[in-house]
Every structure is written in C-alpha cells, then in structure tokens.
C-alpha cells in the first residue's frame, strides 16, 4: 500500500476525559502534517467512528467506560488492518500496555509525554514502524519481550556486525553511551554513530525500541 507522505496524517483520538482531549487538540492544532478528524469518548464510539472516518491512525486511551481500548483496538485491527493504533497510557497502566500491543497496537505513549515525542510517535507509527515511549522502564521491556507481541519480520542476525552486536548487548544491559565508550575504549562520538546505525537498521527510535527488537529477534537473551 502506498501512502501520500505529504498529505496530513488523519488521526482519531479516544479518551473519556474531555479536558484531556481538549488539551491534546490544542497541541495538534498548531502542528502541520497532523489532522485530528474525529474524537470518541469511549471504546464503542471509537470503533464506530473509525469505521466511518477511516483515519490513518488512532490514538486511544486504555481504560475507558464500556469497552476498553484493548477491546476496541482488537476490533479496529480486525476490521481495518491498515489503520495503525497508538495506545495512550496513564502513569500506572504499565501492565496494560502489553495487552494493548498484543491486541495490535503499534506503539504507546505516556499521557504526560513531551509534545515532540507525541509528534514523533505519530510519524513513526504512520510510516509503519513501531514506537515505544522514551520513558519505558526496564520492567516493561521485559514484559513486552515475554509477550506474544511481535511486530518484526524475521531478519538475519548477520545484518549486524560483531561490534554492533556487542553494542546492542550493552544497550540492553542499560549502559549509557558514555559507559559503552569507556568499556569498548572508543569515543562517545563513535558510539553515537554506531547507535544511530543500529537504530536505523532496526527502525527503532530510542533505547526501548532497540532492546525490544534485540530480545524479540534473539540478538539479546534475558533470563
């Protein structure tokens, strides 16, 4: 399927708090390239208007009255597999994120994410990649890695050279660029370069993306 990359991304937002939707709207309004075409205040309404408006992307809360974001995502993906879903989560819904991903969401954002992160998530998922919020905890990465969720196509490990694999392992071990540089006796600049190349190959946006990819593809094993 081809997409017009210059046309604005049409999104639908679902959340049961009007205040939150209003705030989100004020953020999106000024951003070119993203157009909010519809809003829903519960899961049922979301499924209904998604069918009518056929947006490119859906951003939905997880806990909503009636049917939850999890159930709504499952329904949307079953009916319209080309529509991407991003989960919006409150600070203590971490354990529900895995359920969202298993239902077919392509990424998630914490509701207190920075505006740049919101735009980045929308663009990344719209391109067909996956997006994990920058604040993703190690605990959540492990939960995702252990879950049935796997958006990645089988790739060969050979597409990463020895050095890259070594660095991936260190990133998975929660080492910072600086620490990796010291460990491998390289400059921080060089590590940054490696990191960028790794992210590009994995189509990951941050460390969380690298770690989930590495675990899902068997590059890094967790106990």
């Amino acid at each position, binding site marked *: 399927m081809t997409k017009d990359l210059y046309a604005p991304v049409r999104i639908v937002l679902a*959340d049961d*708090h009007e*205040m*939150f939707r*209003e*705030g*989100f709207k*004020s*953020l999106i*309004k*000024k951003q070119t390239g993203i157009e909010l075409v519809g809003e829903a205040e519960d899961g049922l309404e979301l499924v209904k208007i998604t069918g009518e408006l056929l947006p490119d992307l859906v951003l939905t809360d997880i806990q909503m009255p009636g049917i939850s974001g999890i159930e709504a995502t499952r329904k949307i993906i079953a009916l319209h597999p080309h529509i991407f879903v991003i989960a919006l989560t*409150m*600070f*203590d*819904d*971490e*354990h*529900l994120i895995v359920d969202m991903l298993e239902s077919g969401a392509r990424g998630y954002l914490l*509701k*207190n994410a*920075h*505006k740049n992160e919101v735009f980045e998530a929308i663009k990344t998922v719209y391109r067909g990649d996956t997006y994990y919020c920058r604040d993703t905890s190690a*605990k959540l990465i492990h939960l995702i890695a252990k879950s049935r969720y796997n958006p990645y196509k089988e790739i060969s490990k050979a597409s990463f050279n020895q050095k890259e694999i070594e660095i991936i392992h260190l990133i998975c071990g929660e080492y910072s660029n600086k620490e990796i540089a010291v460990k491998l006796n390289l400059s921080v600049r060089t590590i940054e370069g490696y990191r960028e190349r790794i992210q590009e190959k994995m189509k990951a946006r941050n460390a969380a993306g690298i770690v989930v990819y590495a675990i899902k593809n068997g590059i890094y094993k967790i106990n």
Partner: protein
Amino acid sequence: MDAHQTSVYTTILISSFIIGIIILYFIISIIYHHRRSLTLYKLSIEAEITTLEKERSRMAADLHDELGPLLSAIKFRVGSLDTNSPEDEQTIEKVNEHIDTMVQRMREISNDLLPNILVHKGVVVALDDYINNLSKPASLEILFAHQDIPFLPQESAVHIYRMVLEIIHNTIKHAHASVLKIEFRRVEDKLVLHTMDNGQGFDYELTTREAKRLGLHNLLSRSEMLSASLFAESGRGKGTSYIIEIPYNPSV
C-alpha cells in the same frame, strides 16, 4: 426445738439458693457482656478496615481518573504555546519538569493507596510486581510461588495482598531472616497461603505486645473478614510461619 432447727436450715437453704442464683446471674451477665464487647470490638475493627479500604480505593481512583488527565491536559496546553523568547522557552521546560515530578509523585501515592495492577491483573500479578520492585535488604531472599489462583473479587484480593505485605514487612523489620518463602495455591475449595521464614521467630504466648507490634491483629481481622483460618507458628530461633486457609467457591 426440732421445728426451730428445721426452719433455720430452711432459711439457710433458701438464702444460699438465692445468693447462688444472684452469683450465677452475675457470672452469666459478665460473660455475656464480655462476649458482646468482644463482638462489638471485632465489628468496629472490621468496619474500620472496610472504611479504610473504601477510602483508599476512592482516593486512588480520584488521583488516577481526575488529576492525572488534568495534568496531561496542562502539559499539552503548555506545549502548544509558541514563543520566540528563550527565557519563556526555559519557563515552559521548567513547568514541564514540575508536571513530570507531580505525575511521578501521584503515581507513587496512588500505588501506595491501591495498586492499579491489583485491580486489573489480580493478586498474584500484583504480589509478583510488589516483590520484584521491593527495596529490601540484600541479605533477604523472597521466593514467591503460586498455583491455580483464580482472579478474585477486589475485596478479597485487597485483604490477601495486604496480609502478605504485612508478613513481608514483619520479616524485613523483625525476623533477621535470609529467606522468606511465600506459597499461594488452590487446594480443592480452599486457597492456601503459606509463608515461612528462617529468622529468629517470636514468642507468641509470652509477648502479646509483640503480637501487637507484628500487626497480628491486622492479620487476624483480615482473616476473619475472609472467613479464613489463620495458623501462626513461631518460637525463639525457630523462624515464623503462617498458614492462611481461605474458603473459595468459584460459583460465587
């Protein structure tokens, strides 16, 4: 003379009978009042616990459902501001940082009140999460095993969760143990919670004050509210073990 003697005996007999009845009446009424006050005491503790849990649940929900989205909305609103002044830009960043700190604090408070994970994923997942994230002395190892535990109604889940937390805290604070084993399994129509530590133990009979300190009353009250039976076994140098048997009826 005989008649006089008989009447004296009769008088003594009757008066001792009356005195006996009066004493008996007092004894019975003392026992009755004692039982009554005990029942009332139990009821008031149970009411206290119920109120406490209700309030906790309400506050956690308010934080999560009302203040949370409001804070996000504020962050988005602030994010939508356009400014060319670097100073204002800095102010916006600072506001964002403050909001993040508030969200973080709210998360901690709401989690202490009633973990969201307990409501949604049940007691086993919540306990697993709690144990994994617990900051405990490195010298103590906590092993948690579970089998066939169904998803329980929130009320029972909360009691079980709090009881296990109480036991964990006691072990950390008083037991000087190196291992705490927690087993939770379903055995026919019962859920059996069994905990064992290899610490210094305590003398249950000797020190009721100790019992109070260890929150045993809390464990007892919550057990009673679950219609569970609680067995505690401990002795100086023998470690402490608890067995809590909770009746479970899947059709209810």
